[in-house]
């Protein structure tokens, strides 16, 4: 059962980060120009070369709110005439007990470099400090001619940790919203609300493919991608494998699962064995048919396509995360006359699968496969919830597009303000 432990990480990694971040960034950013660099420094009237740049006029340090703690933002005001300076050096010191230290100031100890920032910037976020500890900061301007005098904060600053990371609020809300939609419909389905799912030909064709293999006396090849269990696509692929192997068990057809990760092999064995058990053919289960080949991408491909040419499986399934090997596998399968069903969320590989396979589960269809195949109301409900979330995303996109277009047409007026507001709400 080692296998099962791992899957969890996968999920959370993706659910918390990857996907939703992708969503927020790709869909909502309609336009955006980088804020022009600040710090237009007036030239020295005489144009004289200065030996060393002047020190910053003032410096302050404050805790950054809504974060994990240990982060302090240091800002300073540059003096005029720092054209020759190239960067700022920011240093920190712990707060020492009275009487200690090198005597540079009350309670200030040895200074540690914490950041170097371009001269154009006037602040630095210092992180990885011990939370709830206090520090002094100082800043020095550096030019090829030398360094300026230091400017030190008057009082120590403390980076407190907060309960919640504020910057991630929009993301958090988005997750909550999507989750709420999904959960609502799961519950609705449990209460018996009828849910209609569109037929997915690729999944209906599973029996066709397995039947073909049975009639032709050949095996079924199932490739669950080349990624490990921490990839949600692999998990989705294994849910399909569960179903395919159950059909294979019913038809009494041989199934082969080469994997490129040991963990996937273990998980696949669990899934296939459970299916054979459920189909009442536990005796026909052969663990050696699910085997680890190699982690090396093209080594794996070489094995699988070689195996295909020799054994000529009548049905090939590619369900998971694929890269360059997608076309090699699918074309080889096509040449040996197999029914091929592919599913991946790797959009770059979809065209290859579509061109060479009989059926392709495109992106979200692949993700929905497990729910579709189970036919359980709970799971179908979650699909409906997902659709509603999609509708909300679409509405926001349309809103953004309308506002951005409006703002472009009428730069003065409510539109740009509204657009800014929307951007603000959605974060970035």
């Amino acid at each position, binding site marked *: 059962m080692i296998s099962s432990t791992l899957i969890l990480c996968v999920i959370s990694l993706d659910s918390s980060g990857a996907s939703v971040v992708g969503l927020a960034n790709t869909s909502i950013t309609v336009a955006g120009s980088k804020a022009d660099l600040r710090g237009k420094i007036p030239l020295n009237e005489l144009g004289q070369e200065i030996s060393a740049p002047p020190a910053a006029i003032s410096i302050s340090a404050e805790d950054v709110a809504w974060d994990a703690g240990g982060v302090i933002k240091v800002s300073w005001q540059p003096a005029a005439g720092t054209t020759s300076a190239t960067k700022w050096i920011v240093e920190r010191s712990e707060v020492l007990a009275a009487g200690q230290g090198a005597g540079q100031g009350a309670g200030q100890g040895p200074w540690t470099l914490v950041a170097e920032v371009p001269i154009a910037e006037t602040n630095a976020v210092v992180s990885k400090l011990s939370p709830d500890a206090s520090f002094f900061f100082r800043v020095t301007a550096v030019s090829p001619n030398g360094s300026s005098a230091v400017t030190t904060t008057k009082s120590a600053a403390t980076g407190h940790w907060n309960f919640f990371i504020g910057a991630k609020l929009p993301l958090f809300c988005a997750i909550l919203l999507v989750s709420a939609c999904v959960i609502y419909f799961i519950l609705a389905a449990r209460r018996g609300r009828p849910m209609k799912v569109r037929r997915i030909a690729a999944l209906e064709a599973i029996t066709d493919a397995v039947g073909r293999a049975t009639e032709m006396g050949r095996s079924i090849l199932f490739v669950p991608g080349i990624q490990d269990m921490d990839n949600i696509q692999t998990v989705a692929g294994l849910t399909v494998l569960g179903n395919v192997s159950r059909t294979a068990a019913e038809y009494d057809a041989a199934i082969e699962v080469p994997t490129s990760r040991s963990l996937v092999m273990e998980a696949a064995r669990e899934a296939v064995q459970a299916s054979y058990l459920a189909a009442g053919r536990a005796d026909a289960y052969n663990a050696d048919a699910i085997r680890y080949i190699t982690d090396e991408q093209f080594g794996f491909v070489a094995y699988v396509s070689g195996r295909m040419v020799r054994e000529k499986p009548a049905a090939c399934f590619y369900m998971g995360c694929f890269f360059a090997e997608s076309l090699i596998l699918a074309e080889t399968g096509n040449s040996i006359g197999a029914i091929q069903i592919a599913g991946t969320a790797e959009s770059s590989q979809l065209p290859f699968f579509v061109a060479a396979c009989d059926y392709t589960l495109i992106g*979200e269809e692949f993700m929905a496969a497990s729910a579709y195949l189970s036919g359980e109301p709970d799971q179908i409900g979650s699909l409906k919830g997902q659709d509603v979330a999609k509708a909300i995303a679409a509405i926001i996109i349309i809103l953004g597009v309308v506002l951005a277009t409006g703002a472009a047409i009428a730069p003065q007026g409510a539109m740009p303000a509204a657009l800014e507001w929307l951007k603000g709400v959605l974060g970035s």
Partner: protein
Amino acid sequence: MKRLVPMWIAIIAGFVMLLSTFFPITESLGETVGEIFNVVAAIAFVLGAGSLAKVNLAKISRRDQGWGYAAITLICFTITLVVGLGKIGVPQSTQFPLLGWSGEKDAEGSIFGWIYEFALVPITSTMFALLAFYVASAAFRAFRAKNLEAILLLSTAFIVLLGRTFAGVVLTGWLPDWASGLRLENLSVYIMQVFNTAGNRAIIIGIALGVTATSLRILLGVDRSWMGSGD
């Protein structure tokens, strides 16, 4: 029991990871879970190697057709494993001259490095290069102007194919500057940036939501099929 325990491990670890993104107090827990995964994955490698050995040994034992290849596989596997772990031929590390066995496994002169450079690199490059051939045969078979969608795809393919080579420059380079947008190379960039981007974003949004819903199903214990179908 057999299903309940893993399911709860999944649910707890999943929520820890989710929360660690937003709540600093759980951050280190999240990292721990991530590390556990790496450890488990590393241990699982032993299982993989075991499977590889068992399958191939069985083949040799039975003298199955092509058992010679199984023998070659096992021999190569063993050699690579030994020279890699044993760091055979690795020169002493200059950094830590006093510590034996401290050189890099693939440092110059090592057998492992030699295998890498003269076996692995050419073989994998060859496999990758095969793509060109497969693309060609797939294009010959699948690109049929069967309906309107196919015709659109076909013409786009032509533009991009030409636009990404010098042929594009040759064919449409004569276009005056005011019509430079119609030059194949610019057209192909335009297609990639506008049409491709729009389509891809749509797919990405769908996938993202699908991933969220799938994750949620697993986190809520609604979908247990990753442990095998049936109850």
